[in-house]
């Protein structure tokens, strides 16, 4: 099964992250499942005329196109021409190429939040009038219409994340190769449920601080970052703290807030990223599925019950007070 990879308007970071795949490395992970790149702009040998020939053959249906993977948002500007991104050497915009290639593909995978929903490429007034492959922010219909279906019958598969975890991408591709990814395996924003059925909160090492609303006040402190520092890991989908990044990392393990980068429109939170918006001193935004009254009641109760150890550590830059030891009551 082959993959044609296009890099549209983005940072290339999802490919860079993909190269961090481990156990085994990316190339062995893909080839072991019978996946190969028809062409990848960062990895393949073919350049210039050779690459143009591959693209033309795929568009003409002369070679089967099993998976079209798109990284980066699709620029529509200026004035709807798409000329803010020309695919070099071809005289055609990326927008035009995408619309030509997508109908030929058995499946279309949008890799990263720029490709899925527009992402950071569309921040701050969207200077290049960019959209996602099949979404414009949270609205269905992007560079491809909301009703687009690949030859398999699936809509564009949205592997959202900024960047994507290498496992999210390789596992999506391998499930497609195995024929085990169906419409029921995607959430309402087209994201594969195998990682989108979790919250970033799950497995966050700050959970004990969260339980007591023992909060960090400044960046670099150990406490929960929900109350003051803009963390929305309780609302963000992703298994970032269940299977960590680059060995043993995640945003909250790195001691900085989750900014919900797997979500449409995360790029414009309408407040500073590192600051929790508040009304009358009360943070705005509830943990997912939590009734407001209960959250308020539990938060005030748990805050009042915060053990000294947890309160002290919350505003320290490292764990200063270890857990109290309890002597076993057994043999002597």
């Amino acid at each position, binding site marked *: 099964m082959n993959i044609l990879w296009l890099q549209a308007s983005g940072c290339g970071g999802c490919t860079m992250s993909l190269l961090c795949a481990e156990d085994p490395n990316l190339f062995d992970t893909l080839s072991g499942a019978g996946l*190969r790149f028809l062409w990848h702009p960062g990895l393949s040998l073919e350049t*210039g005329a050779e690459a143009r020939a591959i693209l033309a053959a795929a568009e003409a249906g002369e070679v089967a196109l099993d998976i079209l993977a798109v990284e980066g948002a699709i620029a529509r500007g200026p004035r709807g021409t798409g000329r803010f*991104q*020309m*695919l070099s050497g071809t005289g055609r915009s990326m927008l035009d190429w995408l619309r030509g290639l997508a109908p030929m593909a058995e499946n279309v995978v949008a890799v990263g939040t720029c490709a899925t929903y527009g992402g950071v490429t569309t921040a701050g007034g969207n200077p290049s009038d960019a959209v996602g492959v099949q979404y414009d922010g949270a609205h269905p219909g992007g560079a491809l219409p909301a009703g687009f279906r690949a030859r398999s019958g699936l809509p564009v598969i949205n592997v959202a994340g900024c960047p994507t975890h290498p496992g999210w991408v390789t596992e999506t591709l391998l499930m497609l190769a195995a024929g085990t990814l169906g419409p029921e395996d995607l959430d309402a924003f087209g994201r594969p449920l195998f990682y989108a059925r979790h919250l970033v909160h799950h497995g966050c090492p700050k959970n004990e601080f969260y339980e007591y609303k023992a909060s960090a006040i400044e960046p*670099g402190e150990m406490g929960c970052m929900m109350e003051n520092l803009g963390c929305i890991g309780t609302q963000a989908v992703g298994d970032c703290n269940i299977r960590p990044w680059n060995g043993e990392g995640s945003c909250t393990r790195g001691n900085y807030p989750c900014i919900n980068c797997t979500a449409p429109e995360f790029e414009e939170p309408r407040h500073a990223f590192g600051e929790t918006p508040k009304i009358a001193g009360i943070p705005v935004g509830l943990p997912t599925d939590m009734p407001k009254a209960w959250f308020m009641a539990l938060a005030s109760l748990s805050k009042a019950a915060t053990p000294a150890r947890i309160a002290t550590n919350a505003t320290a830059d490292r764990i200063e007070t270890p857990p109290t030891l309890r002597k076993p009551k057994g043999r002597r």
Partner: protein
Amino acid sequence: MSAPTRLVVGPFNRVEGDLEVHLDIADGAVAAAQVNAPLYRGFERMLDGKDPRDALTIAPRICGICSISQSAAAARALGAAMGLVPTPQGAAMAALIHAVENVSDHLLHFNLFFMPDFTRPAYAGRGWFPRAVARFTAIEGGAQRAAIEARASLMHILGLMAGKWPHTLAIQPGGVTRAPGPREKLRIEITLRAFRRYLEEVVFGGPLEDFVALETVAALSVWGRGDVGLFLEIAADTGLAGLGRGRGRYLSFGAYPVEDRRIYAPGLWQDGAVQPVVDAAIVEDLSHAWMLGETAHPFAAETRPDEAMRAGAYSWCKAPRLAGAPAEVGALARQVVDGHPLARALAAGGGGVLARVAARLLELAHTQLVMEDLARGIDPGARFITQGKIPEVGQGAGLVEAARGALGHWLRIEGGRIASYQIIAPTTWNFSPRDGAGVPGPLEAALVGAPVAAGEDTPVAVQHVVRSFDPCMVCTVH
């Protein structure tokens, strides 16, 4: 003399982002080149009016390969505006995090971006060809597999100290968000030892100290070990020393600020001597860019795309000039300015494709030693961050070194919001279009004279020259 012919090369892959090169060919060589960055993104516009701290989230997303460099520049620019410097240990940890990214980029460039061109059928008759194919075939070569595994393991330092890569928020104006303890220090040292073993066994085939001690091009050329030895053999056989020569004017902002110095010194190398870098002498010329406005210093500049894409202009890339002239940036520039004898010898020898690639390898070895020093120096009891306030009005520049060279962010704050944010990326310098005086950018100049064989539609020599710069087009067109 035969009539010149025109060649358009693209899509130009194995660079970060997209690139189109227009060539005038005469008498079997490139007579003139125009480099076009065919993408406009508008990050500077996005940042206008935002909370200045948001630059720490948005700016890294300019680039997925030098994301930490963007973080570091944004944090330094903010810090300058705030009158805040990182704690000494915070600065050292930020330097280590940054060095991991730069080293990873050098490794990736050599193995995945640059070397595969020598597996092309055009080289099938050469004695080294079977070894090049075994090591560097795209996606399948042994060196490629080993490189991505070593890189992924090295990046465990980033998982540990920066949460993830790319796009971390760990680097702040006052230091880093996570304070390492004794365990973290140990893990970093363990990871670095494993990475050294890989470098010595696979890439260099010998002790890093021996490679860093090389002083002459002659000594380099007989290194003869590891994948570096294979590269040097290929370089000698294909004449890479004479291909794609530079103009000999090299700029570095200086890499890895720690306490009172930068580990790799800043400066401008010109006419055989290092001069200080004068920030005020930097301007961006818009004469051949699809940008509206006047030539200006980044504190006074604006970014207004020319939606009509006027004739006469040919790129979304502005043309940065220092004291009126272009400058080449990158590992070669950095090591020449820092004073490494081998780098200066490579520059004196013409600064061509061999020089750029060899300097990157030199820096790969050298920076491993730097990272080991930084790791040894971690004090798990120290403060790694300090806090400050964003001013109502202020400005600051963050000048750092990405893997690909000098990276600057220039920030102005008014009313507590970003009033202007200007970025000059390394490849903006290297792949700059012509300026108002018609002076070409460094790549455009280096391509002149590159041989083009009859019937070549994507000349392989042109590819070697372009990739020797390790361009990052997504940064260029921020």
